[in-house]
């Protein structure tokens, strides 16, 4: 089989899985069959991805760009869009990361969701998400890309609002969907602009044409900025980031899969895929690099003070994607994608371990109430620490290699980029601090009651309440409530977490400066059209960068240890001392309040005005009510004739006949 055949198989398995899982929705919960079908679909897709990878490696590097068209998707008015896939190193790399991590998260979900009444629905959604993501990655033109892009947004909405009786979950789903649609619109406008100026929607046609455009041509910069709107909305970058922390309302495997490892990295993929455009619109690339740097810093500062465990990880995701965006925007594509891969591993791992802790707490997500889980849950403790070490950039875990590949490249380009790299190092210090703030507050310190009962072998008894608002909940659609006591007891969860812990530790091996460059060499054919593909800092410079990163990471971890272990309680005094700073960060730089004030409240006021004046007074009152009143007035005249007196009827009859007679008499005269 050729590489493209494998590419089609990669797409087909999750689609079949979606349909099968959806058809089996009547299967009672606690029957893991649906879960295993869903997992098998993704596993097969991963296997097909490996087949694609092997077949691609068989070819010479310059021939690793394969297109396969199934049929014409749309053919009219000069547009010829084919349902086609593009298999090249970039798409194969992304497919392997997405299907691999998805497979492990599916296995984790088999255990994690087993007491949920929406079990089959969950796996149908999850497979649908993976299918959409793969469609997005494998598309060979902008139309299919947008189709996959919108599907992914829809899947994200469905999964965030998975517990749809929970008001805060549906609200978060709506918020994510609206933000994603802003991005969709941006991407569609970008496709319009590109079609207008290049006459093509195929990647090859657009890129070939754009390669001849002069640098910073107006339309190209505009198209790139619109692509950035799409990428930033999907990847939760400032200023379109506010949906991601709220998206943590979804089940934890969803947070791990969609809102950490895969979907939110679609923006990074998009910029890497359209790198030819950005090469000819460096102004747009600089905008992207600056906003990415701003995001990584803003998100890291917010993560310092949040108390919801999953939200801290969500802000950390935003921050890490900021690094990736910076990487692909300064044309360090391989480095950005390298970070995408390592981040997918350690962030999925962190979410899975967090899910284990949260279920041990009976649904409680507040770190203020956690503590001392080190003894009670040794496996979770080790895996979480592995993830945190990789996130913090602790040498020699995977995170430091990928992060410093980006920052080193920035220093190598110098100027503005060196300034951004310094901010990046500041961010990595903050990252190390908040990563170990989570570790120390969750696993060290005094034991929470739940941890104590767990170490006695009893499982905490949770209540059906909403962790965000504390409301009591309607459990008809299933929640991980009192019956949901898994807390690393299930082998499936351990099976999923162990390989990720290993990868979080060892994934850096694919690109150790001066030792290996497998990933860079593999991705090179995709980016071979630019001189940046082969540019990289000297090995000694990279190792200096890694050393600086390692020192910063140890400093951050040490500070966290000092503040949360050595001088426990010091942070409370700091908080009281710097109350305004704390409030500013705790309220997420007031982005939500700003958007509420600028967009949400005016819109709501306008909607209220429309309902009161336009709907009630004008439509209901004047149009609908007016028609009613006209008919009513007409009938009241007709009714007044119907007196019920026989003689009155007879009189009118005679009057009529008399009238007719008179008329004919006058006519004939």
């Amino acid at each position, binding site marked *: 089989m050729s590489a493209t055949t494998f590419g089609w198989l990669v797409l087909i398995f999750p689609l079949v899985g979606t349909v099968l899982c959806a058809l089996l929705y009547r299967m009672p919960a606690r029957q893991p069959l649906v879960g295993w079908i869903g997992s098998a679909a993704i596993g097969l897709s991963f296997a097909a991805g490996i087949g694609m990878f092997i077949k691609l490696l068989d070819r010479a590097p310059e021939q690793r760009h394969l297109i396969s068209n199934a049929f014409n998707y749309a053919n009219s008015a000069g547009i010829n869009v084919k349902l086609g896939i593009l298999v090249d190193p970039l798409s194969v790399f992304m497919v392997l990361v997405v299907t691999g991590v998805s497979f492990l998260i599916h296995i984790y979900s088999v255990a994690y969701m087993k007491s949920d009444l929406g079990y089959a629905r969950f796996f149908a959604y999850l497979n649908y998400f993976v299918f959409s993501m793969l469609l997005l990655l494998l598309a060979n033109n902008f139309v299919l890309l947008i189709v996959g892009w919108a599907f992914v947004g829809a899947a994200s909405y469905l999964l965030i609002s998975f517990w749809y009786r929970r008001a805060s979950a549906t609200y978060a789903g709506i918020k994510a969907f609206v933000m994603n649609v802003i991005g969709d619109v941006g991407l569609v406008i970008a496709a319009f602009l590109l079609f207008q100026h290049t006459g093509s929607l195929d990647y090859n046609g657009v890129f070939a044409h754009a390669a001849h455009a002069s640098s910073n041509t107006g339309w190209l910069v505009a198209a790139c900025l619109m692509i950035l709107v799409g990428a930033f909305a999907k990847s939760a970058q400032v200023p379109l980031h506010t949906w991601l922390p709220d998206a943590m309302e979804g089940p934890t495997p969803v947070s791990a899969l969609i809102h950490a490892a895969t979907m939110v990295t679609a923006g990074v993929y998009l910029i890497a895929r359209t790198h030819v455009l950005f090469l000819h619109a460096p102004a747009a690339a600089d905008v992207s690099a600056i906003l990415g740097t701003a995001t990584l810093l803003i998100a890291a500062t917010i993560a310092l003070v949040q108390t919801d465990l999953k939200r801290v990880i969500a802000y950390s995701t935003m921050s890490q994607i900021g690094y990736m965006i910076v990487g692909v925007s300064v044309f360090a594509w391989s480095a950005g994608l390298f970070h995408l891969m390592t981040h997918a591993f350690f962030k999925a791992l962190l979410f899975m371990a967090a899910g284990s802790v949260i279920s041990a707490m009976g649904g409680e997500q507040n770190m203020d109430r956690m503590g001392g889980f080190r003894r009670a849950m040794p496996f979770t403790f080790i895996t979480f620490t592995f993830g945190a070490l990789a996130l913090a950039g602790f040498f020699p875990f995977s995170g430091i290699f990928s992060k410093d590949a980006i920052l080193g490249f920035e220093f190598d380009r110098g100027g503005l980029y060196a300034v951004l790299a310094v901010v990046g190092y500041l961010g990595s210090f903050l990252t190390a601090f908040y990563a170990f703030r989570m570790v120390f507050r969750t696993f060290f310190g005094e034991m929470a009651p739940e941890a104590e009962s767990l170490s006695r072998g009893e499982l905490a008894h949770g209540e059906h309440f909403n962790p965000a608002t504390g409301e009591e909940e309607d459990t008809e659609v299933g929640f991980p409530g009192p019956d949901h006591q898994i807390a690393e007891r299930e082998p499936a969860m351990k099976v999923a977490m162990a390989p990720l812990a290993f990868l979080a530790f060892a994934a850096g091996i694919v690109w150790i400066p001066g030792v290996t460059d497998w990933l860079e060499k593999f991705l090179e054919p995709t980016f071979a059209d630019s001189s940046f593909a082969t540019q990289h800092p000297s090995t000694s410079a990279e190792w200096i960068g890694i050393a600086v990163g390692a020192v910063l990471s140890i400093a951050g971890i040490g500070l966290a240890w000092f503040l949360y272990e050595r001088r426990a309680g010091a942070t409370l005094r700091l908080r009281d001392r710097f109350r305004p700073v704390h409030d500013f960060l705790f309220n997420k730089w007031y982005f939500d309040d700003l958007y509420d004030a600028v967009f949400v409240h005016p819109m709501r006021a306008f909607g209220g005005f429309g309902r009161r004046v336009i709907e009630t007074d004008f439509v209901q009152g004047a149009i609908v009510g007016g028609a009613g009143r006209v008919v009513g007035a007409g009938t009241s005249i*007709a*009714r*007044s*004739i*119907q*007196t*019920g*007196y*026989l*003689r009155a009827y*007879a*009189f009118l009859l*005679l009057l009529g006949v008399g009238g007719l007679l008179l008329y004919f008499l006058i006519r004939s005269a």
Partner: protein
Amino acid sequence: MNVTWFLVLSAFLFCIGATGVLVRRNPLVVLLSLELMLNAGNLALIAFSRMVGNGEGQIFALVVMVIAACEVVIGLGLIVAIYRRRLPIDVDGVSEMRG
């Protein structure tokens, strides 16, 4: 004889009948007046038939008589029904048809 005389007589009878329908309140008399109006019509038909010189108009008159008989049956039936329910024998007394 000139047809005008027949038509004048017919018109007289019709007007008497119509006045009877409008002014009398006893349903029996109203029915009686109706018959008078119908027969005024019949008279006009026969008069025209004679004037034209064929018998078709007379057939029409016979048909009208049959219809009048049917109508009287229904009318009398209604009057008996009203009487049975001990309602006043008065056409103004039954005005439930008011809209």
